[in-house]
Structure formats: C-alpha cells, structure tokens
C-alpha cells in the first residue's frame, strides 16, 4: 500500500488510527467496526487473503488482549496488519471474520484455544490444538511455561490408571525466566524445589 493509499484509508475511516510497525502498514480498528472494515478491505482494496490471525496478551495492561490480523493482497502484493483491542479483559471477544474469509475458521479457533478470545458469530468455535475438555488457555501470560496439572482427556483411562497430565518438571529447565525485563534480573531458576543439589530426591 502506497503512502497515498494509507493516508486515504485513515482519512476515509475516522475510527481507524495508525499503529506503530517496523515493516508493513498497520492500523488499529475498534472491534465494532472490524467486520465492516474488513469487508471493504476485501472488496474495494483487494486484500483478498487473510494470512494470519493471532492475539497478544498484554498481561497487566488494559485492554489486555489485542487481536492481530494480517492481510495480503494477491493482486497488489501488499501486506496490511489490522489490530483490534478486546473491550473486556475478563471475557475477551472479537467479531468473527469467517463469513468474509474461510481461512479465519481455523485461525480463530486456534486463537480461542490458546488465548481464550471468544469470536462472536463463529460457526464452530471449539478447541483445535488442545483437547476439547482442556480447562486453560496456555498462551496467556499468567499460564506457566511448565503447564498445570489437569485430568487426562480420556476419563475411562484416567479411572483405571489414576494418571493425570502432569506439569513439566522444572529442574534445570533452561528457560524459566519471564519475558519481561532483563534476564539477569529474572534469573532462570527451578520452580520445583522438592529436590535440588542440597536436597535428595524422594522415592
């Protein structure tokens, strides 16, 4: 998208604002206008391919969740990033783009699965990578890297074996430090203190 087009886009749609980006042109779009805007993007600006849908969890900031859409125009060879904040931090939701782009189906299911963002109007919004009964959304920042102990997906097996899906052991794990701040201040340490160099492992 050339400079002229981009200015035109912001000028034409008053609800858009420019978004900081290192590479492609990017706009912020309020979630109320997302469907209308994407419809015009597809039909008038020829952004015919939805290449990716994802979301960011800003942790303590508000709005906490931002949905990110990447569009590509196969005729103009241009990328466009559209970001849309979720209004609610507790029950985040965004409108579904499945009616406009079939690709949105799986991408939105993945975002729902891993981030817990509800896509209104999605015909089949269920988990895609994790199993159906999984209780958490693992890509949220408050979800620990090692995972949380959960019941086995197969209830009959669990009943027989009494096995659960265990969290990963963190002893000697090389990457426990958080993404925020310098790594030297968040020294990678073992979360599991039940056994270490000074305390022997129980049987």
């Amino acid at each position, binding site marked *: 998208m050339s400079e002229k087009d981009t200015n035109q886009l912001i000028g034409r749609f008053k609800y858009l604002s420019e978004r900081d980006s290192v590479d492609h042109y990017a706009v912020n779009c309020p979630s109320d206008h997302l469907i209308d805007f994407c419809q015009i993007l597809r039909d008038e600006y020829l952004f015919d*391919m939805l*290449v*990716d849908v994802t979301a960011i969890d800003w942790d303590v900031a508000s709005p906490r969740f931002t949905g990110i859409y990447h569009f590509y125009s196969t005729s103009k060879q241009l990328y466009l990033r559209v970001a849309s904040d979720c209004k609610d931090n507790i029950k985040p939701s965004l409108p579904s783009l499945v009616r406009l*782009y*079939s690709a949105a189906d*799986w991408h939105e299911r993945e975002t729902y699965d891993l981030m817990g963002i509800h896509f209104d109007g999605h015909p089949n919004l269920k988990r895609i990578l994790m199993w159906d009964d999984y209780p958490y959304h693992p890509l949220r920042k408050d*979800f620990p890297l090692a995972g949380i102990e959960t019941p086995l997906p197969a209830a009959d097996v669990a009943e027989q074996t009494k096995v659960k899906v265990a969290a990963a052991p963190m002893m000697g794990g090389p990457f426990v430090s958080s993404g925020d701040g310098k*790594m030297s201040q968040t020294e990678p340490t073992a979360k599991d203190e039940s056994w270490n160099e000074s305390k022997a492992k129980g049987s």
Partner: protein
Amino acid sequence: MSDLKEFSVGDIGSRSSECEPALKTEKMALNVGPSHPTTHGVLRLMMQLDGDLITECEPVLGYLHRGDEKIAENMTYNQFVPYTDRLDYLAPLANNVAYALAVEKLAKLEVPERCQAIRVICCELARISSHFLGVGVYGMDAGSWTVFMYTFTEREKLYTLFEELTGARFTTSYTRIGGVARDIPDGWLGRVNSFCKGVIPVLDQVDRMLTRNRIFMDRTVGIGSISKEKAISYGITGPNLRACGIDLDLRKDKPYLGYEKYDFEVPIGVNGDCYDRYLMRAEEIKQSVSIIRQVIGNFPEGLYYAEEAKKIFAPPKAKILTSMEELIQNFMLVTEGPQMPKGEVYFEAENPKGALGFYIVSKGGGVPYRLKIRGPSFCNLSILSELLPGHHLTDTTVILGSLDFVMGECDR
C-alpha cells in the same frame, strides 16, 4: 434396455442411492488416524461415509502440539533457532532462514551477499529435499512404490551435503541471526553442483514413471480440485495455491535474500487438482536446481555473517577465550540474549510447503514478547472439511498426499 442406467465401475455411492432405493443403507462413521500411513504424521480425520462416498469430514489436529510459541516467549532469540528445525522437519534449513530473516527485519539488519548466497542455496536444497519427499510419498500413496525409491536415493545425497555443511542431517540449526553458523566447507559448492547434475536425470525418470502413467493419472486428474476463489479464501499458499492457477510466489512478489537477481520461473497450474499439484512440485525442483546453479556460478566473496551483527551474533569463537571484550560480550549474549529494538514485524518466506510466517512482538530486550508462527500446512489443511466430501474414500489417500503437509508446523 432404455431404463438401464450406466454407472462407472466403483461408483458404489451413486449405485446404492439411485439404482437400489429399496436397499436400506446407513451412514458409517470412519476414523482415520491419528497414526495412519496416509496421514503422513499425526492427522486424524473423522469422516461420515455413505457407501464409500465421503459426506462429511472433520480434521482433528493437535497431536503434535508442543507449544512452540509459548516456548519462544521464554527464551532468547538465539535459543529459538533449533526449535524452528522442528516446524517443517522436512526442510529445516529453510525454516532456520525464515526465522532469522524475521528477526533481522526487526533488528533492521542486512546480511552480506555471501551470507545471502549461502542461504539461497540452503533454501533451494531444502525445497528440493522436501519436494522429493512430497513427490515420492505421493507416488507411493497412489500405488507407485518405485518413485519413492528413486527420490529417496537423491534425498540421501542431499543429507550428506547437509551434514557436511551443518554437522547434522535433519535438525540443522544452521542459520544464526545475522549470518550462518559457519562458512561453507572446502569443495562443497562443487559437490552441490555435481548433485544438481545428477538430479535432472532422476527427475526425468520420475517424470517417465508418473506424468503419463495411466494409473496415476486416473487416480489424480480431476480429483480434489480447488477453485481459485476457494484457495485464496482459505489462505492456501505454496505449490498447492499455484496449482490452482494463481501466480503467487513470495520469492518473486516480495523478493528477499536477493531472489530478484536470479532467473527462474514460477510454474502455474490450471485445474487445481491432485495432478496439477504433482506437476508443480516436479517443475519447482527443476527451477530450484537452476537457481542453485546461478548462485554457484557467481558466488560472492566476503563474510558469512553481518559485521554489525556482533551484538546479536556470537563473537568469533577463537576470540572468546583470548580477548576480554569478546568474553564479556559472549557472556551477555548467553545470559540476556541479543538486545532487540521495540516493535512488531511480520515476515513470510516462500518455504517448500507454502508461506511460513513469523510475527514477532518485541518490547525490547533479548526475549520476544510474543512470537506467532504461521504454518503453511495449517492453512493448507483447513480446506479439508470442504474438499473431501463428495470424494470416494480411496481418494483421501491421494488428496492428502497431493497437499503435501507436515504436522510439525501445523500443530507447532
């Protein structure tokens, strides 16, 4: 005689529904996978069958989900390189390059020409390797075992080349942010060149075995056709998209690594069926060979890593133990990671399976705040629930083979 209907052999679905309406049939649920030879990994398909016609299909994913994106948020940019090997594990060299390019874009880093040339060779060798597997197992799926033997022999030679270059056959982890791990070994280019010479005759043999093979054509022509509109709407990329007749190759449209310097053609299909998808891959191997020859013919001198990338790229190993400054720098790199500017980038590279994208959100520092991987196989498979219904059960094998997906990057 006039009320006799004609049916093609094997058209059981229509026979049962039209010819014998009194026959009480019931729909059958069939579960394929997750461990099944045709699914090439751990894809599971839940299908509804009417006779042997598929009426519904629901793919189930996630059996190879390892949480790569979560892992990436918890380690430095450098540390994530080996994880990219495990995305499309049939073309690890190309994944390494795509990831490095995405991070370099964030860091606004240009790599020298020699490094670019090495990376182009890596990407194209990976493409040849991936397509050879794609064509080989596709032939096997369609009942032609021999093709697989020929293409795997060539892949073995490729792995020997990879081993010489990177030290590993499968999980190469060869690129570094700002360069590659080490320079090419002596005489390696010559060996790549002689490999290229040997590939063309093998391709011709594959061509003779498959392209006009009556059985292969009967099983693939007109099967699994995807229309242009559908393909774009589902975000299909790579050879699968080009088979539908859409001219989209990021190497041409959004040139990176200096692809604009090389003269190559992008094969475009007509019908978007299983047969066209095979033709695309076979032709792309030839084009890759041509690109590699051009790179070798004009191989640039210079550094294999960017000089200004020292803050990001590990300092020269020989100096770490002899020079104070490099030692400190190495220590900082290992403990804190390369210091990246703030920002958001999205970069897609034309990988063998399609456009592999990395979306990186950085808040500064050595760890990505969010890293999203767009796996081309994920998007290419999303059309399955629409593509398979209406086909016979036996076509599943061929359609899955022709889509040439890999679950490593689908489930991530």
